[in-house]
């Protein structure tokens, strides 16, 4: 099956400034692709290139196998997009705004009601958009992107400027779109923790380059987990763990750190260690599996430094 998005050496420069520098995106169909990076990394420019709003200086874009330049109309029909801030006609109602896009796409009249239901705006359909909150505008923007049933949805910073409630609404909406509608989602964000909640795949942009691209599962599996223990008799515990075949190191007066290879392994190791320590009469005050977050991984990738650990759960 063709990738939802495939770019080859995609480059875009404005004068001497290179905004996007030869990136090679590969977005699998059906995925939720988190397109991450700090502000000014080139995310919005990339989305504009994917949508054909900008012409690449070099390279090409393929949308489900279609060349986005030579077959622009066909490729555009497969995509729906929300670029930067939601841009609506404030003097028109939500329904009238959507009707304009529906008419231009030649989509069915029932599509307007369908997308209003999807984003939970049916009750406000006949209100002027000028009176909408930012969260409602954002959802209306997503509704508009859904008209014509696109196979690929490009959302540029969809939670930007939203309050926590609005962020939660949009996050739920993104998750439900992937599940219910089977849409491939390409979501850009500079808030890494935000994408961590919904993405199946991630790409990291920095200074116009794609530094990293992977499925979230693969990314997590290659990261070393550690088990941290809090016990009363540290030296005895180190000896016992050594006899069990675990390398451990003192980490403070009553704390030990044990390396584990993967999440499943760490959980299994954790249970075995706990049983042995208790059998020996060593008091265990805390057991903790630590793994790096996406943010830690990405910050480490950008800085080229080792990835720090961060607590995922705490049992005590």
């Amino acid at each position: 099956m063709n990738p939802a998005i495939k770019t080859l050496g995609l480059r875009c420069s404005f004068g001497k400034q290179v905004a996007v520098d030869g990136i090679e995106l590969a977005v699998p169909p059906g995925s939720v692709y988190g397109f991450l990076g700090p502000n000014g990394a080139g995310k919005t420019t990339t989305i504009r290139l994917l949508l054909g709003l900008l012409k690449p200086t070099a390279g090409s874009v393929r949308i489900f196998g279609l060349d986005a330049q030579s077959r622009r109309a066909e490729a555009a029909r497969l995509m729906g997009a929300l670029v930067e801030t939601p841009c609506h006609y404030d003097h028109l109602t939500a329904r009238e705004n959507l009707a304009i896009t529906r008419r231009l796409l030649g989509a069915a009249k029932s599509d307007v009601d369908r997308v209003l239901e999807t984003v939970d705006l049916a009750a406000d359909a006949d209100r002027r958009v000028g009176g909408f909150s930012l969260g409602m505008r954002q959802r209306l923007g997503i509704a508009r992107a859904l008209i014509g049933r696109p196979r690929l949805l490009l959302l540029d910073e969809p939670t930007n400027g939203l309050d926590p409630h609005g962020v939660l609404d949009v996050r739920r909406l993104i998750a439900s779109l992937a599940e219910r509608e089977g849409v491939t989602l390409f979501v850009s964000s500079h808030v890494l923790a935000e994408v961590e909640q919904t993405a199946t795949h991630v790409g990291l942009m920095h200074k116009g380059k794609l530094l990293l691209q992977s499925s979230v599962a693969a990314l997590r599996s290659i990261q070393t987990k550690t088990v941290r223990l809090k016990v009363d008799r540290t030296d005895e515990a180190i000896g016992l763990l050594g006899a069990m075949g675990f390398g451990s190191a003192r980490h403070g007066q009553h704390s030990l750190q044990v390396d584990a290879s993967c999440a499943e392994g760490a959980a299994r190791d954790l249970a075995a260690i706990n049983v042995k320590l208790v059998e020996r009469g060593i008091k265990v005050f805390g057991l903790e599996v630590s793994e790096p977050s996406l943010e830690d991984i990405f910050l480490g990738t950008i800085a080229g430094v080792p990835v720090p650990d961060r607590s995922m759960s705490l049992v005590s």
Partner: protein
Amino acid sequence: MIFSAIYCEFAKLRNSLVLLLCIAAPAMVAILSGLILLDRSEATDWYMFSMQAAAMWSYFMLPMTVTALTILIAQIDHGPKAWNHLLALPVPRWHFYAAKAFVVVSLVGAMSAALVVLLPAAGGIVDLLLADQKLKGAYPWFGTASLIATMFAGSLLLTAIQLWASLRFRSFVPPLILGIGGTFVAVAATASRQGAFFPWLIPTNALGADPERVATAIQIGFYGGIAVGIFMLFDMGHKQAG
């Protein structure tokens, strides 16, 4: 598909200030013509009345209204940055700009027609208000309509230039300066022979006594407007969004 784009352009005008402008501009000329008539001490005829109104329309109100109208129509999409959405749709880009041009020209045509209808209403009201009838004879429907229609045809060039500027710049200031500057220069250059070639003055040439100059000016305005319109579609169709 172009019909969908035109339909959508008209749909965007709902609840906007554009329609108010389209009613206000010809109404103001008619009202002002009526007030001037009210102030006159001696009687005049309908022909002179409509000629004066047409002069007011072509000198000042038409170019200023075209300036305001094109800015308002362009700002409907510039304001909320709607081009980001529109130009990503599977619609040929020139359709959007051609639809805007169609709407602007249609509205200028509608305003011109409204002026032809509002003038006898204004003159009739003044005659009703005064004991002495000030307007002699009958309202020259055909003469007024053909004069205003000639002005409309000649205004295509200034309309195309103003629309191009309004679409090209996200800010409304450059097309506003262009429109005010053009109108100001037109008033100052009325007596100039080169006035026949100045876009903002071309419609006024319809009032001229020299038929050859009138024909030249109006042809420049009409065909020049079509040519500039085509260039605008080509330029805007190839411009990168945002």
